[in-house]
């Protein structure tokens, strides 16, 4: 199964019955899959007139208290930014999938991770975060999609799957099982008062700055809980590591090959792979800064996550960056060379 299809099927198994989207490479298989499946299970697939309309349809279904998702690729996510900000302000849970391609602008259609900053900083106006999940396999495309719905509901926030063209297009074995959807209080939802309760309002507006501040503080209390309880990462061959590679998604897969090669040469190197990009796994990186002599970041961008690594390690160790951009994927050989460079005591480029 392709990664994009795994996302779609996992969403359905997670109880999502509403999908709105607009075609864009390389994520269109999500929409195609939904178009095929939704009518057969009593769900709703609708191709919207624009990304903007799609995200606002998501806003509508989320307001009604139901699980809903949209998917797109980088330029489309920029268009969705408005709606994503409104959903953050209105505390609406939903899942947004970004199968990244090279940018900026129309960019290209090959895999990229250059929306890292956009995703981890909210990606639109206002004080807010998305819960950002970065799959590195087709199985994780499915698993993190399901998890994303659960966490979105739990914290009343939008979760984002930050994948890339490789993850979307590749095929790997995957198991997707129907699962129990955790109980979740949605008494805030717009279901109609039935003349039996006070009316519910979904909005992001407050003309009183103190009130708006209170709303933002309340939201950040939830974010603090997310940072405390929901950090996820993979630690790979780190036990005795002197060099720590940090990479997510496809870059982490490439890095693993290089690490295994370097290990054969006796180089003590390991990998920390953030699975949640926000919240970022600061603690394990801080700990690694105590035991490792240097870091290497591998990204499909000009170097965006490296700033979070610098913050997490408090700039205690040199960081070598190994980046390719525009849709180019760093090769295992390039990462291997970076590891060997670090082994020789090479400094950051």
């Amino acid at each position, binding site marked *: 199964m392709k990664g994009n299809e795994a996302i779609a099927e996992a969403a359905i198994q997670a109880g999502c019955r509403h999908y709105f989207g607009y075609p864009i490479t390389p994520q269109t298989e999500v929409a195609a899959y939904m178009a095929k499946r939704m009518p057969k299970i009593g769900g709703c697939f609708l191709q919207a007139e624009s990304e903007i309309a*799609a995200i606002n*349809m998501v*806003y509508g279904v989320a*307001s*009604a208290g139901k699980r*809903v998702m949209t998917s797109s690729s980088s330029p489309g996510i920029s268009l969705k930014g408005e709606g994503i900000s409104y959903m953050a302000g209105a505390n609406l849970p939903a899942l947004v999938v970004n199968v990244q391609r090279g940018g900026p602008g129309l960019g290209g259609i090959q895999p990229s991770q250059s929306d890292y900053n956009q995703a981890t900083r909210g990606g639109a106006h206002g004080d807010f975060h998305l819960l950002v999940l970065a799959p590195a396999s087709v199985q994780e495309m499915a698993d993190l999609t399901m998890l994303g719905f659960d966490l979105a509901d739990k914290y009343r926030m939008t979760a984002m799957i930050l994948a890339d063209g490789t993850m979307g297009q590749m095929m790997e074995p995957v198991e997707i099982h129907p699962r129990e959807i955790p109980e979740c209080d949605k008494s805030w939802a717009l279901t109609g008062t039935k003349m039996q309760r006070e*009316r519910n309002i979904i909005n992001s507006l407050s003309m009183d700055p103190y009130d708006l501040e209170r709303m933002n503080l309340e939201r950040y209390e939830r974010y603090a809980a997310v940072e405390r309880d929901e950090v996820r990462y993979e630690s790979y061959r780190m036990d005795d590591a002197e060099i720590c590679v940090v990479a997510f998604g496809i870059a982490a897969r490439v890095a693993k090959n290089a690490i295994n090669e370097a290990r054969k040469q006796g180089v003590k190197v390991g990998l920390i792979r953030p699975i949640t990009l926000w919240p970022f796994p600061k603690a394990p990186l801080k700990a690694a800064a105590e035991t490792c002599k240097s870091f290497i970041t591998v990204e499909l961008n000009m170097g965006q996550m490296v700033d979070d690594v610098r913050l997490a390690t408090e700039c205690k160790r040199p960081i070598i960056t190994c980046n390719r951009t525009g849709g180019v994927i760093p090769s295992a050989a390039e990462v291997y060379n970076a590891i060997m460079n670090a082994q020789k005591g090479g400094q950051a480029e």
Partner: protein
Amino acid sequence: MSVVFQKPHALTDAVLHYCPGCTHGIVHRLVAEAIDELGIEGKTIGVAPVGCAVFAYDYFNCDVAEAAHGRAPAVATGLKRAEPSNIVFTYQGDGDLASIGTAETVHAAARNENITVIFINNAIYGMTGGQMAPTSLPGQVTQTSPYGRDVNHCGYPVRICEMLATLDGPEYLERVAVNNVKNVRAAKKAIKKAFQNQIDGKGFSLVEVLSSCPTNWGMTPVKALEWIDEKMIPYYPLGVYKDRSAGKGEAK
């Protein structure tokens, strides 16, 4: 003693923030009366716009979602698709519906989305202080057309009912005004019909309401109502532009 006149149940007790002489209050009341008379308050969900009616969620006594500027038809689409048995309406001004949200409006109509749209056309941006609207008349003086709307420079007004009537999609399109008793009564009838259509599953029903903005037009409330007759109605003729079930305006 019998009560001969009272506030509709579907309006809250909140004091309207609208300017003196503004006709938003009338239209709010007409919408609320329709909701009361059809007995649908408990399953009605409103979608408020950005613009003067941004606080509509404080006034309607039902569940309300506040949408981003222009996106109300998309939000309403989501709400309706999530629970088709609910009654979903949007309440939008001209900047919201006919400028920034044109695409959402046209495509909701093209899909014959089973929602009710109340469209307030007062030919100006009220909330931001009187700038040119997509529906401002040729020659109309506004803050951003201080020498009068020059159609050679910034184009012509958009006639929404006429434009949407060219589509096969929508069920019902009518333009009304609220500048005198007779027109208000006709407006009430149109708004109620637009809700009834949704209850009957007929589809996209939009009522365009020619409204006044004395503050930003720089007129007394009375003069503003006259201006609707003198200037607006000639450019925006009242009437039913499409009523599929009645065989009116059906595309060939």
